[in-house]
């Protein structure tokens, strides 16, 4: 068996997939009002978003977009509703999850097969929320997962009217 063949085998590919799941499933109902959904960003939260601090690029052959962010003046509840709507339209299942690294804040997960996208809503300033969508697993964007431009386009187009601006 050649190396190329080995790499192509499904069980081999599967065995390579790690699972650094920082999100655990939440038991609460999808419909419940979630005021806890937004967490205030401090200066270092903002600084951590810088791409210069993300060293995973050295392991990747090309830039993989695993995350997209936008600011909005919509309310957290509206954002959540929109995420669920867009997700459903694209065939995702909505799942409430908890972000273990952020005080177990509630985040909205979109699940479709092995693809999981998590939407986090953070408060930058009064009436300005930052919505961070991260591809946590799967996606055909590149070697390390993440979404391709087309997949991002599909997802993000549904938010266009509530977006103040998009950010990397």
């Amino acid at each position, binding site marked *: 068996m050649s*190396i*190329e063949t*080995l*790499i*192509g085998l499904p069980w081999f*590919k599967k065995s*390579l*997939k*790690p699972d*650094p799941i920082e999100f655990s499933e939440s038991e609460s109902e999808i419909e419940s009002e979630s005021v806890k959904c937004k967490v*205030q*960003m*401090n*200066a*270092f*939260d*903002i*600084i*951590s*978003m*810088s*791409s*210069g*601090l*993300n*060293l*995973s*690029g*050295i*392991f990747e*052959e*090309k*830039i993989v977009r695993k995350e997209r*962010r936008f*600011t909005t003046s919509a309310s957290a509840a509206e954002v959540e509703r929109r995420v669920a709507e867009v997700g459903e339209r694209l065939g995702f299942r909505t799942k409430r999850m908890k*972000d273990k*690294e*952020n005080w177990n804040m509630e985040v909205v997960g979109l699940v479709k097969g092995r693809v999981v996208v998590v939407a986090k809503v953070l408060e*930058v*300033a009064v009436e*300005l929320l930052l919505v961070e969508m991260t591809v946590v697993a*799967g996606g055909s964007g590149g*070697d*390390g*997962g993440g979404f391709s431009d087309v997949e991002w386009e599909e997802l993000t187009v549904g938010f266009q009217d509530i977006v103040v*601006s*998009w*950010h*990397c």
Partner: protein
Amino acid sequence: MSQCLEGVKHLCASLLRCCDLELQKQSQGLDDPAILASETVFSVSEIEALYELFKKISGAVNDDGLINKEKFQLALFKTNKKESLFADRVFDLFDTKHNGILGFEEFARALSVFHPNAPIDDKIKFSFQLYDLKQQGFIERQEVKQMVVATLAESGMNLSDDVIESIIDKTFEEADTKHDGKIDQEEWTNLVLQHPSLLKNMTLHYLKYLIFPCFTFIFSYNISNRMCYI
């Protein structure tokens, strides 16, 4: 005759002691992975795999066997045209010899801190040093503002100065428990323990999978890693 030879030997020895020797030593092959392995969280095999990655990065642009800032930027951003305050800080922290280049040892020791199993104290210390732009042993408000502004500029997010000041006010209110206008290492540690997500950039999950056949194939044989799903 013998005096002459002695003289020549002496001269050669002095010349060798000149600047290049250090550089040469730095760019030599992997001498003893076991030593590095014992001083980092990596196993010998992981050190060897990391060395393949190092060779790949240091081989871009030229092959002096070292990583300069340009090659580092290239590895990180896939372009050497992107200036980044933070990438510069990271490079400077990796460069413990302060000679503007990274040898394999510096590369491996620094990346060891980013391993998922590295002690959290190391990560806290590294991140503190990262943000302590002027290296004064504390993070000043002005440094925080500089970093926030740099990040916002990079991401294209437009916040008014008032909003930025208010965010920094709130951050210092929470972090600066000694109320001296600066964040020292102890205050930083407390802040990070309250907000673990602030350390997310300090862990690279890829480092756990260095010795998966996939990676060593990529680095040594340049096979496309399209099949590697991480």
